């Protein structure tokens, strides 16, 4: 395989893996902070046990999110060094600020929080987890600001063959950030909500710690309703912005080949990938224009016209992102999102009406729907990033001009295999621990583990 493809594959795999864990950290750190605050305010031991239980699961998740994040920062230099050279004047700053402002905050205070239960006053200890939650969510802000530049470059000029920063506030207040950031934060809340609904339902079905898990269930249902609706609203805004910022991404995810006015929304479009011949094309007339323009008319440019336009503008080449991936990623994300709105509303209804005993089937379903936010997070990220093709910075730097010149396919093969192996082992361990502690419930999480009796464990004297 060639260097470009391997570098893209490695970036895709490592970022998807990283982002698999990040949303839960974003949402669950806020939940744990709220739980501990309630404990401090009321002195109710129940909330302390809840804090410790959900906190333990947060820690398992947090560890893997942190270590896979370092890979992302280094990778910009390792496999994308020409990209780094070209945009470093602009792109480096948000990364450095992310570290200074957010990573220091979350990691230092997490360390204090884990080890500081009996060393700090209750209030101060709760303040630490708030710092962690704020730090995590701030880091999302700065990395999304960096990503927004790649999606929609602003505040720069090209001088002597590289992009230089001309307006920092334009980069920070780049329009897409106002929908991307709330979209991602809400997705974090949704992930935490469905994670909590699944585990709470598992225990409620077994009549285990009913009081604790009804409280968790209620909290998750409320957060789920707010989160899913908010994700939808900001997702919709993002979709409308594509019209102006990335029309090719919009056309590709809708499989809209020819320009239409008013444009139709695809319900199901299947084509033969080798010939490009359309086999099935079920469309709702005018709906796409309505969704993009809020009225029943409006031109949406098609893939073919945009391709011609870009060839004139940027020279010959393929400017069409892999439509099949975008089309199905988008539909998976939106489908999962809509389903989650319905499920959260019903969960809230169950809680308000106290129907827990009447709907065991729903609780059973909830133990599986934890997969939905992960599906939506992953496909959403794939949509955003694959839709950037063939650009590393939209309409400014092509992917092939961003990849490192000195890195060989041999090196990339080694590192790719290395990451896949290590990440594979880590996710196995993570899932194992998650399941173990989720099923064990709060009793184990709040008492000193029985495993610490030294005589039980006799490790060999040396390695």
């Amino acid at each position, binding site marked *: 395989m060639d260097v470009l493809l391997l570098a893209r594959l490695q970036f895709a795999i490592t970022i998807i893996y990283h982002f698999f864990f990040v949303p839960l950290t974003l949402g669950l750190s806020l939940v744990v902070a709220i739980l501990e605050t309630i404990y401090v305010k009321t002195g109710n031991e129940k909330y302390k046990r809840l804090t410790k239980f959900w906190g333990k699961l947060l820690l*398992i998740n947090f560890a*893997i999110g942190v*270590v896979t994040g370092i*890979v992302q920062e*280094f990778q*910009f*230099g*390792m496999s994308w*060094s*020409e990209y*780094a*050279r070209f945009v*470093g*004047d602009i*792109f*480096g*700053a948000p990364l*450095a*600020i992310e*570290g*200074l*402002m957010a*990573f*220091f905050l979350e*990691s*230092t*205070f997490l*360390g*204090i929080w*884990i*080890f*500081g*239960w009996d060393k700090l006053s209750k209030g101060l200890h709760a303040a630490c987890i708030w710092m962690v939650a704020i730090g995590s969510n701030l880091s999302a802000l700065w990395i999304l600001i960096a990503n927004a530049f790649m999606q929609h470059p602003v505040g720069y000029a090209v001088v002597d063959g*590289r992009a230089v*920063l001309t307006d*920092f506030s334009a980069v920070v207040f780049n329009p897409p950030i106002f929908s991307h950031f709330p979209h991602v934060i809400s997705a974090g809340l949704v992930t935490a909500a469905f994670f909590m609904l699944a585990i709470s339902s598992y225990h409620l079905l077994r009549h285990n710690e009913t009081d604790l898990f009804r409280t968790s269930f209620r909290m998750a249902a409320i957060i789920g309703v707010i989160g899913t609706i908010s994700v939808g609203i900001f997702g919709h805004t993002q979709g409308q912005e594509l019209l102006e910022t990335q029309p090719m991404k919009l056309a590709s995810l809708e499989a809209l080949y020819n320009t239409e006015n008013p444009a139709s929304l695809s319900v199901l479009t299947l084509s033969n990938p080798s010939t490009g011949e359309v086999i099935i094309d079920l469309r709702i007339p005018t709906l796409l224009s309505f969704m993009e323009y809020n009225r029943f008319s409006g031109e949406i440019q098609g893939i073919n016209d945009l391709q011609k336009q870009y060839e004139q503008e940027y020279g010959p080449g393929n400017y069409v992102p892999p439509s099949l991936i975008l089309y199905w990623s988008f539909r998976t994300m939106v489908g999962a999102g809509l389903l989650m709105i319905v499920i959260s509303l019903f969960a809230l209804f169950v809680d308000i009406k106290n129907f827990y005993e009447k709907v065991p089937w729903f609780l059973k379903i909830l133990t599986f729907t934890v997969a939905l936010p992960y599906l939506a997070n992953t496909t959403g990220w794939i949509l955003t990033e694959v839709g950037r093709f063939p650009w590393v910075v939209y309409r400014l730097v092509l992917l092939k001009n961003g990849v490192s*010149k*000195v890195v060989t396919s041999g*090196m990339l093969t*080694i*590192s790719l295999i*290395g*990451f896949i192996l*290590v990440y594979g082992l*880590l996710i196995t*361990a993570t899932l194992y*621990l998650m399941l173990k502690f989720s099923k064990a419930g709060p009793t184990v999480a709040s008492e*000193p*583990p*029985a*495993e*610490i*009796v*030294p005589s039980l*464990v*006799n*490790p060999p*004297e*040396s*390695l």
Partner: protein
Amino acid sequence: MALNTLWFIFIAILYTGFFILEGFDFGVGILLPFLGKNDVQRRSIINSIGPHWDGNEVWLIVAGGATFAAFPNWYATLFGGFYLPFFLILIGLIIRGVAFEYRSKHDNPKWRNLWDWCIFSGSLIPTILFPVAFANILRGVPIDANMQYVGGFFTLLNPYALLAALAVTALFTLHGASFLSIKTTGEIEQRAKELIRWLWLLVALLLVILLITTAIITGLLERINFLTIIFPLITIAASLVVGFFLNKGQFGRVFLMTCLTVAFFVLTIFVLLYPNVMISSLNPAWNLTIENASSTPYTLKIMTVVALIFLPFVLLYQGWSYWIFRKRVSNEPKQLTY
């Protein structure tokens, strides 16, 4: 002062902070299997750095980010050129970070030994490879007229780099032992102190050899000035004063001296490097310098403002975290955080 000089200093400080802090927690990780003879002892050792290692590691992330922001060409040439060493460092940091969190969450000797092995190797690999990278930066590597590294992986494994790796591994192990001597009790504390007794002179000796080699390789004698003399001398002096406080049994001061040794060791690298950031062994005209590798003054100005606002806070709350956990870690199982 020119902003690019300021950022060169700032990056030197970030790496210094990183190596002082992560230096002892790498050392503790390397010593884990040797000083911890049973599960409780190993847990005590891990808990001595438990609240801190993650915050310590952020110094590296910020140093990397600052290099990217302030000297994009340095960042690109270094990370792209030294691809495989950085890949291995990443793998080390990944398995190590997860191991701290996962190790005690399952009660099975095999599980725990696996993660202990991850902590050990995840600490040792970066301890070996960071000095390899910095030694090569200082010694010079094949960099062409387009700022591209044109050597291979094995170009980096030259005797000078390996000597640096050996010296730093010994130094970080000593640094870790001196940290453990003031943070643990009982057998671990005694073993750490014993280790310092036979290791400190070896470290000082290795540092002297490394300094002499460096002076020859980098042509130091031809560009002697106050700074290029004083920084290496303080490094050596601090490593020797370790022996003085050791004899008096003042281990707090021993730790202070190993901190100073690491700090001035790292600063020496940057003092010798300035105003270059990467040296080309092919042609001095192709060196990357603080001029040709840097960002624009506008970006540097913004970054300076951000750093001046946030770094004091970071120092304050990280200092506070060390203050909270200033007591020695207990070796009573019931008092250990898992």
